[in-house]
């Protein structure tokens, strides 16, 4: 599932018109085309009709998502174990020396993302027969003066893992990956590098940040008191998502910016430790070559679960991943459906 799911539902009733209706439309259009092609100088046939806007048809039925019950992951430790990990991470963060930028230097934040791309479903259905893992990289160079120009490079890399139900489905997934340009690396493509003053990349052009969203500009004013910070994180606009999940996502979004000062990062960990339903989901979770402790909110069977991965010995935020709660086509429940690893470094130049 992705952010295009809702878009695909919008006006779907048109794609699901009765066969007879579609055939009728096509026959009338073909007759008009044929007549006009054979009588190109007939002004009457060239006159296009533009009827008044019709009232949009009723909304399509809800997407039917096959939810297959699977055994929920049982935490190996109690909630206090999660709190202990987070408090250790909070202490380690304060002790670690934050990266300091000299004039002309940049903070380079590399987010390496891997997402499952499902393929093979007949149009308008979720009956996928195959899938592949599509890796992508977003590298952001943030200048010392954050009001000046930031640089961002984004590109997809070669698809890595293919899931299939049959040999034909595997071929189809590979073909789809090729069609999606996932079979080749794309570093250096035109448009892969963008620049934005003050870090205002495309989101601003599309109407700005939604109300309540936390941006880097808000970092200095965020509360350092864990409970107050928790309340603020819960206010991010993400309606429909349970509070703990919303907090976890908002916290990881902030940590992934690379801009969170040590004392705030420490407060974020302490704030997350207040979530009553946060559990250690895996003690040795590997992401992008690094290992840390995975923490997630208890989820119902069949529902995807978000986890953050933290190195509690250094306080480093390693990344975030989503575990698929139900099987989708050939991809079993429990598979990591998306992950983002974050690494931060100081560089002396930017592309």
């Amino acid at each position, binding site marked *: 599932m*992705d*952010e*295009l799911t*809702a*878009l*695909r*539902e*919008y*006006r779907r009733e*048109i*794609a699901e*018109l009765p066969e007879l*209706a579609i055939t009728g*439309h*096509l026959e*009338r*259009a*073909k007759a*008009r*085309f*044929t007549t*006009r*092609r054979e009588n190109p100088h007939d002004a009457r046939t060239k006159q*296009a*009709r533009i009827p008044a*806007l*019709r*009232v*949009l048809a009723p*909304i399509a039925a*809800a*997407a039917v*998502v096959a*939810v297959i019950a699977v055994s929920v992951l049982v935490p190996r430790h109690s909630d206090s174990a999660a709190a202990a990990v987070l408090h250790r991470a909070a202490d380690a963060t304060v002790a670690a020396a934050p990266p300091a930028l000299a004039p002309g230097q940049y903070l380079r934040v590399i987010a390496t993302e891997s997402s499952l791309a499902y393929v093979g479903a007949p*149009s308008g259905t979720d009956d996928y027969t195959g899938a592949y893992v599509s890796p992508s990289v977003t590298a952001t160079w943030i200048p010392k003066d954050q009001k000046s120009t930031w640089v961002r490079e*984004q590109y997809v890399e070669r698809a890595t893992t293919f899931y299939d139900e049959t040999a034909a489905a595997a071929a189809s997934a590979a073909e789809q990956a090729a*069609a*999606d*340009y996932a079979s080749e690396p*794309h570093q250096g*493509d*035109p*448009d*892969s590098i*963008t620049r934005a003053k003050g870090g205002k990349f*495309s*989101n601003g052009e*599309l*109407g700005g940040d939604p109300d309540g969203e936390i941006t880097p500009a808000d970092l200095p004013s965020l509360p350092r008191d864990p409970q107050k910070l928790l309340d603020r994180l819960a206010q991010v*606009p*993400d*309606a*429909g*998502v*349970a*509070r703990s*999940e919303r907090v976890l996502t908002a916290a990881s979004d902030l940590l992934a910016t690379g801009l969170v000062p040590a004392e705030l990062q420490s407060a974020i960990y302490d704030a997350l430790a207040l979530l009553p339903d946060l559990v250690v989901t895996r003690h040795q979770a590997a992401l992008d070559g690094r290992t840390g402790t995975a923490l997630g909110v208890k989820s119902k069977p*069949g*529902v*995807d679960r978000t986890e953050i991965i933290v190195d509690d010995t250094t306080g480093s935020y390693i990344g975030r991943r989503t575990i698929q709660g139900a099987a989708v086509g050939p991809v079993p429940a429990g598979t990591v459906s998306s992950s983002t690893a974050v690494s931060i470094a100081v560089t002396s130049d930017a592309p």
Partner: protein
Amino acid sequence: MDTDRTTAPKHAADDFGELFDRHSRPLYIYLARRTDETVAEDLLSETFLIAFERRALFDRDRTQALPWLFGIATNLLRRHRRQELRGYRAMSRSIEASHVDPPNASDDRLDMRRALGGVARALAQMPTAVRETVLLFAWAELSYEQIATATAVPVGTVRSRLNRARTALRAVPGALETLTGADHG
């Protein structure tokens, strides 16, 4: 791979009839989703008429006629852009106004209506090129390469426009969760 190389460059009238039969359905559905069923009939016939008139300009190196036809249809849709935007805004407003919903409407149904209203609003706010790209991807199901052909831009531009559209759609509150059955809190 499906190819129209033999029929595309110098289409006889019969060939064009065949081309119509082959590609008219996805084109019609796409046009109807972006306008309405009646306007789409006109736009579909107009698309093929323009294709027929310009058949000599059809690039011999192109192996597929479908993206070329979608490109023509996309240009024609720009004439209907204001009408299309009015549709999205009307949809968005009608849902915002429906906070007082019928007492028998189910919560899921109402969540769905609101999520789709958010999608309509996001579509209305997108720059034209971004909206065209994401709709060619999500509704017409063209590949990146086909969209690049249809809209005459490099594939990298298609990718960045899709990223922008995805960012905008991700910001629609509740859309994903409502449609995918995630936990409500």
